[in-house]
């Protein structure tokens, strides 16, 4: 088979449906990456328009442009859109598009999950837009502090749009994070050990792990606040045993890592683009990996620095002040490593490099003001003033938007296969750079002059008029610059002339293919021996197209790839991907009905939607797997690999591990919240305690013990060729016992509307019940699979997955039941 024949055959296997219909059924990462990016930039445009409205309002004193009620919606939506609907999805889109190409494989780990995540994002984002069109958008600030965002002070539907819409969108972040983590750890080209991974993959891996542990506190907080608003459970009401500070802890436990979740992918872009622009390898690869890891961890120990003025004792503040200064060290190390790279090489002033210089100038200022506000006494003055507005825009625009523009211009020839011919981009850069600094530099000063954030107007006597006018003028220059960049991108995609492959002479694998990228990425997978494979083997693209790598012969209609061992990069599994399907869009639509029912308080459709999701999920998982055993598959170079259905650690197991990591973080946050309220909140002890029961506790613990043991028997029985049905039935019985114990706990909990103690216990009980139901569903699924012949002693992959979830159920249910019963039993 020649290269063209191989291309045709692979394209037939991998291509999406033609035309716009293909958008709804595609599961291909190249398509979905583009869709993510296009949607994210659409929201960037909307968020930018809102920013213009803010600056129009503040340009002059006593402005009558918008009243405070509308203005509050505008700035709330500006922050919300930029954070949740632009920055995070842009990372997701870039990672989804680039990672398989950089890692030398054909798609991400779970193609249908990518699509599901995208549609959840698109639908959730649309919900937010609808609220804006009808003038009922959230108006409590993007931080949504109760009691202002509670039912008493914000009775309208506005806040519900935020809590429910953002939670819907977060599904896509969690889905993408699981996907990216598993893909980077397992789905790489053979030979690509951890130290040979492209640096962007390290940054994406760290970011994804941060999303998995950073977002759950916010999701939990949103759920609790929505439950408080809808059903009156007083989690955040001081007079009923709640505490508004609990929200602040949960919010910033998410909100601070969020800043680094936004910065790290951008740093990954810089670490990728800058060395190419300087024609030299990156200086200190291992150091940079360590610095990014340090940054990720330290960022989880900073959250209280958003709460310096809440009256926490000085030693508590000092811990976080110290940690906040320390985080500047790994950040600074990366900056100096990049400048050192520039010194090492010969920097060339291409357009991406201009944006990188814009990054350096802007982000260093933002970092320095960041260190200033880490110093507690200064923050007491600067907090909630325009100084902070200026600081955060230096950090986020400098640390995210400039690098992303650099990345867009860098990978533009890859997206389209074309090259630019205008100098529009250079001119636009100048406008953006000048406009940005005119807008935000003087804003620091007006903050020190006492201008608070979020005010809709001010008086001439305040002495802020000149600076605000300058800011507004600058912001319009900035807006024109960004509009020109968007126009440039459009013109480029439509008109520019065909470019050559690998125009930047980069060394990473995404350039070892024809552009625009074919649906299958690589006609055969490379064997990687270096961090920059194209530098040592410039003809790699041709060799791969000729089928000289792994999996070079298309088989059946299989979308094939292989996975590797995490550390060494040795091939270990053969994978067949699912093909195009509308299941993801359908499932996210049904998920949307669930959220919409909650929003509109049509509670009778909630169970319908839940059942719908369960049925679709069943169908989703059912379609994987085979009813006959399969020999090991030859993948080329004399290597034979087992298919993933015949392993103990299939992709689904890896995905479950990381999904459960996020889930455990959510559960941990819930336990933290319970402990926090119990020890810190005013309004305790509660009027009535939970009536403990030894028998209910014992029942639950027996069930929790039975499940994992029986599941292990089932696994072993299946492995030895016996029938595991009896053991599976016992596992099922264990899960049912846990469900009964959790349900009993919810029934016996005192009225949850009367005190936060009972409210939290009720939520803990529901969490246990939900997971027990999930466990029951999974065991039933496995029983059905066994009966239909989808398992054998060789095809055993589904057992470890179910075992993982049953184990998790046991751990959380024991904790929940102990937390509820034990205090009462002890006295």
């Amino acid at each position, binding site marked *: 088979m020649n290269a063209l024949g191989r291309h045709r055959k692979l394209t037939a296997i991998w291509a999406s449906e033609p035309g716009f219909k293909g958008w709804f059924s595609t599961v291909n990462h190249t398509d979905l990456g583009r869709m993510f990016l296009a949607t994210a930039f659409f929201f960037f445009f909307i968020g930018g328009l809102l920013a213009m409205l803010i600056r129009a309002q503040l340009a002059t004193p006593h402005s009558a442009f918008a009243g405070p009620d509308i203005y509050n919606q505008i700035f709330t939506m500006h922050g919300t859109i930029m954070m949740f609907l632009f920055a995070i999805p842009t990372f997701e889109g870039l990672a989804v598009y680039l990672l398989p190409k950089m890692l030398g494989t054909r798609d991400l780990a779970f193609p249908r999950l990518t699509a599901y995540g995208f549609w959840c994002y698109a639908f959730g984002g649309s919900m937010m837009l609808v609220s804006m069109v009808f003038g009922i958008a959230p108006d409590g600030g993007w931080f949504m502090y109760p009691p202002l965002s509670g039912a008493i002070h914000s009775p309208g539907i506005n806040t519900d749009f935020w809590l429910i819409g953002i939670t819907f969108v977060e599904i896509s972040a969690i889905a993408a994070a699981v996907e990216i983590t598993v893909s980077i750890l397992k789905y790489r080209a053979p030979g690509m050990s951890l130290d040979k991974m492209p640096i962007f993959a390290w940054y994406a891996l760290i970011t994804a792990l941060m999303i998995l542990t950073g977002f759950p506190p916010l999701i939990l907080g949103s759920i609790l606040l929505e439950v408080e608003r809808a059903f009156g459970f007083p989690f955040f009401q001081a007079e009923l045993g709640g505490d508004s500070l609990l929200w602040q802890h949960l919010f910033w436990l998410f909100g601070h890592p969020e800043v680094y979740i936004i910065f790290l992918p951008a740093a990954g872009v810089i670490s990728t683009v800058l060395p190419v622009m300087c024609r030299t390898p990156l200086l200190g690869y291992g150091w940079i990996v*360590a610095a990014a890891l340090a940054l990720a961890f330290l960022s989880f120990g900073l959250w209280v620095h958003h709460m310096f003025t809440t009256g926490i004792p000085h030693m508590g503040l000092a811990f976080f002040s110290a940690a906040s200064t320390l985080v500047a060290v790994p950040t600074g190390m990366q900056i100096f490593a990049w400048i050192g790279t520039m010194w090492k090489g010969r920097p060339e002033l291409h357009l991406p490099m201009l944006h990188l210089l814009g990054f350096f100038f802007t982000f260093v200022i933002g970092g320095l003001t960041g260190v200033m506000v880490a110093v507690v006494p200064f923050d007491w003055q600067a907090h909630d003033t325009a100084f902070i507005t200026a600081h955060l825009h230096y950090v986020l625009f400098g640390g995210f938007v400039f690098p992303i523009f650099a990345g867009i211009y860098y990978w533009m020839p890859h997206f389209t296969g074309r090259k630019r011919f205008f100098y529009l981009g250079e001119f636009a850069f100048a406008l953006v750079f000048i406009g940005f600094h005119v807008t935000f530099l003087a804003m620091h000063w007006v903050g020190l002059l006492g201008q608070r954030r979020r005010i809709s107007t001010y008086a001439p006597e305040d002495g802020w008029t000149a600076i605000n006018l300058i800011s507004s003028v600058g912001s319009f220059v900035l807006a024109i610059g960004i509009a020109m960049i968007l126009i440039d991108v459009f013109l480029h995609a439509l008109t520019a002339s065909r470019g050559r492959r690998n125009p930047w002479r980069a060394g990473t694998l995404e350039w070892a293919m024809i552009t625009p990228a074919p649906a299958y990425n690589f006609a055969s997978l490379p064997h990687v021996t270096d961090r920059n494979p194209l530098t040592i083997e410039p003809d790699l693209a041709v060799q791969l197209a000729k089928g000289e790598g792994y999996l070079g012969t298309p088989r059946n209609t299989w979308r094939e790839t292989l996975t590797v061992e995490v550390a060494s990069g040795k091939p270990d599994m053969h994978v067949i991907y699912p093909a195009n399907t509308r299941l993801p869009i359908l499932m996210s639509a049904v998920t949307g009905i669930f959220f919409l029912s909650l929003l509109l308080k049509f509670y009778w459709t909630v169970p319908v939607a839940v059942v719908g999701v369960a049925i679709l999920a069943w169908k989703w998982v059912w379609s994987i797997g085979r009813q006959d055993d399969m020999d090991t598959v030859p993948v080329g170079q004399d290597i034979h690999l087992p298919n993933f259905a015949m392993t103990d650690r299939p992709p689904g197991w890896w995905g479950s591990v990381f999904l459960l990591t996020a889930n455990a973080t959510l559960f941990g946050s819930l336990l933290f919240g319970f402990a926090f309220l119990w020890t810190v909140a005013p309004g305790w002890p509660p009027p009535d305690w939970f009536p403990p029961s030894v028998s209910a506790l014992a029942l639950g613990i027996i069930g929790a013990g039975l499940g994992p043991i029986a599941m292990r028997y089932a696994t072993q029985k299946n492995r030895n060729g016996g029938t595991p049905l009896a053991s599976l039935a016992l596992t099922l019985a264990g899960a049912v016992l846990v469900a009964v114990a959790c349900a009993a706990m919810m029934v016996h909990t005192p009225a949850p509307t009367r005190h936060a103690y009972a409210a939290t216990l009720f939520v803990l009980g529901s969490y246990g019940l939900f997971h027990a139901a999930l466990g029951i569903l999974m065991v039933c699924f496995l029983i059905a699979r066994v009966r239909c012949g989808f398992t054998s002693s060789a095809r055993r992959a589904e057992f470890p997955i179910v075992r993982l979830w049953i184990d998790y159920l046991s751990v959380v249910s024991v904790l929940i039941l102990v937390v509820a019963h034990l205090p009462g039993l002890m006295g």
Partner: protein
Amino acid sequence: MRDIIRILIAPLVWLATFSAIYGLHGLLCGHGINGTAFGLPIERVLLGAAFLFAILLQTALLFALYHPSLAASSEFSRFVSRATGWVGLVATLWSLSPVVLTTYCV
């Protein structure tokens, strides 16, 4: 996967001890206990002991990451895991230093 754990463990332990000591401080302030030990207020002694424990834990981890039988096999993983090991120790010393430097509960 073992290498990933070696790389993550020290900063993860830092995060746990950091949050725990912050929580301990909050607990001591919320439910004040009186008394002295070794001539110091009991709060300071408890916080100091926790700080010392956190430092010892990080030192032990660092020791393990350098120990031939426990260290990672590839040179790269050894380098990164030791670097993050140092991050854990330095972060512990630095971020929890207020235990011995500042006033508590005011």
